[in-house]
């Protein structure tokens, strides 16, 4: 499921207007727009020279494909910033063909054998690169056309070139041991630094709050958290959260820390020099 897992299931794709329909797919090469959320985006609409893609007047509309107008030319593939457009051809007797955007190095060459991956990055088998386009108009997005095993045209959405593993895969993941817990970590959470500039721990901050320092400024005066080089830009939010947690109130009720100039570290010599610096310093 897209929202939970980050990829679309076939059933989700079949419901969106970017899906050209099974009937069209059975008889022609056609683009499929795997764009299922109403996001403010529309370059695909203008990309198609045949007017086959429509977003319409509201920019967040889902793009729709008109399979009758689409010739499968592939122009739109590199124009979609979401890399969500593919052209597929399921009409060949002995293999399917998938055209996809590809933005990794090295680029594959025509004729090269590549590994085919599905939407989850799982290996599906091997395919052969039929064509690769690096046209200038694609602005550095290569468009790769791959012959994939018959029946996998709706599945293959990525390739692995020269065996280069992109993600970390699941090697190196240790599940909980039989005894249950893994080593908890290097330190007691209470000794964890919250303000690293002034080295103030979580425990010190909690203590200050319990003693009545219930604003970011009060905690700062008592513990120095937020007085360092970053001016509290790093720890301020964590301190507000700790205050809110301790008081059982929403974070919004904790007032913002007051800010004083300079908002960035400035050498004192700068102020000492004033505006009239010697010529050789200008």
């Amino acid at each position: 499921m897209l929202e939970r897992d980050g990829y679309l299931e076939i059933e989700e794709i079949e419901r969106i207007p970017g899906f050209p329909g099974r009937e069209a797919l059975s008889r022609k090469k056609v683009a499929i727009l795997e764009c299922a959320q109403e996001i403010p985006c529309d370059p695909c609409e203008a990309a198609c020279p045949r007017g086959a893609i429509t977003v319409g007047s509201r920019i967040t509309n889902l793009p729709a494909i008109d399979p009758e107008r689409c010739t499968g030319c592939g122009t739109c593939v590199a124009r979609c910033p979401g890399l969500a457009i593919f052209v597929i051809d399921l009409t060949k007797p002995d293999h399917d063909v998938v055209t996809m955007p590809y933005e990794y190095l090295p680029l594959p060459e025509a004729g090269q054998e590549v590994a085919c991956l599905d939407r989850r990055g799982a290996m599906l088998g091997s395919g052969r690169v039929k064509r690769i386009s690096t046209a200038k108009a694609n602005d550095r997005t290569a468009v790769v056309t791959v012959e994939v095993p018959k029946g996998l045209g709706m599945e293959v959405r990525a390739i692995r070139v020269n065996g280069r593993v992109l993600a970390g895969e699941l090697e190196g993941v240790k599940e909980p041991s039989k005894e249950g817990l893994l080593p908890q970590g290097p330190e007691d959470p209470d000794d964890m630094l919250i303000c690293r500039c002034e080295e103030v721990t979580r425990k010190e901050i909690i203590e200050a709050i319990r003693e009545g320092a219930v604003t970011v400024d009060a905690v700062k005066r008592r513990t120095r958290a937020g007085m360092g080089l970053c001016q509290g830009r790093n720890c301020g939010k964590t301190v507000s959260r700790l205050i809110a947690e301790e008081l059982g109130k929403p974070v919004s009720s904790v007032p913002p820390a007051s800010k004083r100039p300079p908002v960035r570290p400035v050498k004192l010599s700068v102020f000492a020099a004033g505006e009239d610096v010697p010529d050789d310093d200008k």
Partner: protein
Amino acid sequence: MIDTDILVVGAGPAGLSAAAEAARHGARVTVVDENEKPGGQLFKQIHKFFGSRRHRAGVRGFDIGYALLDEVKSLGVEVMLDTVCYGIFPEGVGLVVSGKRDVLVEPRRIVLATGASENPLCFPGWTLPGVVGAGAVQTMINVHRVPVGERVLMVGSGNVGLIVSYQLLQSGAQVVGIVEALPKVGGYGVHAAKVRRAGVPIYTSHTVVSALPNSDNTRVKAAVIARLDENMSPIPGTEKELDVDTIAIAVGLTPMTELAFIAGAAFTYSGLLGGHIPLHDEDLMTTVEGLYVAGDVSGVEEASTALEEGRLAGVAAAASLGKIPEVEAEEKKREIRESLRDLRTGPFGDARARAKEEIVNEMAKRRGKRSA
């Protein structure tokens, strides 16, 4: 003394588009940014942006930055880089140029477009080398082109976590997983799908419970993650230990509002938009007359909204100086607000639209009280 009509602090998309819009109408505009390169977040973004075509969607972030910069330069805007704005005082705005020259500016209007800073996440081991913000990761791999590590765990599945994971894969690092405390992926599905099909698992309802150090305590050696129950507490026995040398943190951004605070602006709170935010009206003016906010500093959103907010603040500031005839200014503002409304629709945008509206309403109420 620098003589200018409008001082813009921050040369990200919001600041640059504010500057362009105001300069187009004849205002003298100066933009300052503490970095050596303009563009704010844009220069770290090597991916193609989503958004509308009008906001150059489909174009890579850094190319949008270059285009904006050309535009402001051609309009005669002065862009001062390596220049920190350290405070706003009754006597003027304090700048430090190139780390050594203290300059006071007395602009007639100020637009704060300072963006947002990354939230930290504290867990045992978070101070070990190898635990880094996702923004820092981007700066390293995309701007300076140095690797951060070989095996990375990403914490947070918002758009930043997803996009930086993708860029890590492109840079040659392995991403062993993305953990997300909520039961669903925070960012856009299309970004999640990109990393999923490369094989990156997304662990929803999970968090990182600790970072384990190597033998001499100089680097992260592993991350322990665990499943969370409905109260967001780790469930004992569900821990997994992942071999990683880097833990990247992408758990949200906080508007960088210090300057507005120092200037005396009133604040409101919106968890959805990143925390404490300067109250502002429909023109993005704060409770301090002549002080405007635009982009992530007025509530964390996206580059496309930052561009539009910048335009709005630019038009409003220039109009308040009499540079744009009132009717024309109102027409322009109306058109920009409409486009902002359009960008804030859909399941991700609706809530932001409401949060933004609440801020404007609160401001109106406050003004009503004042004048009553």
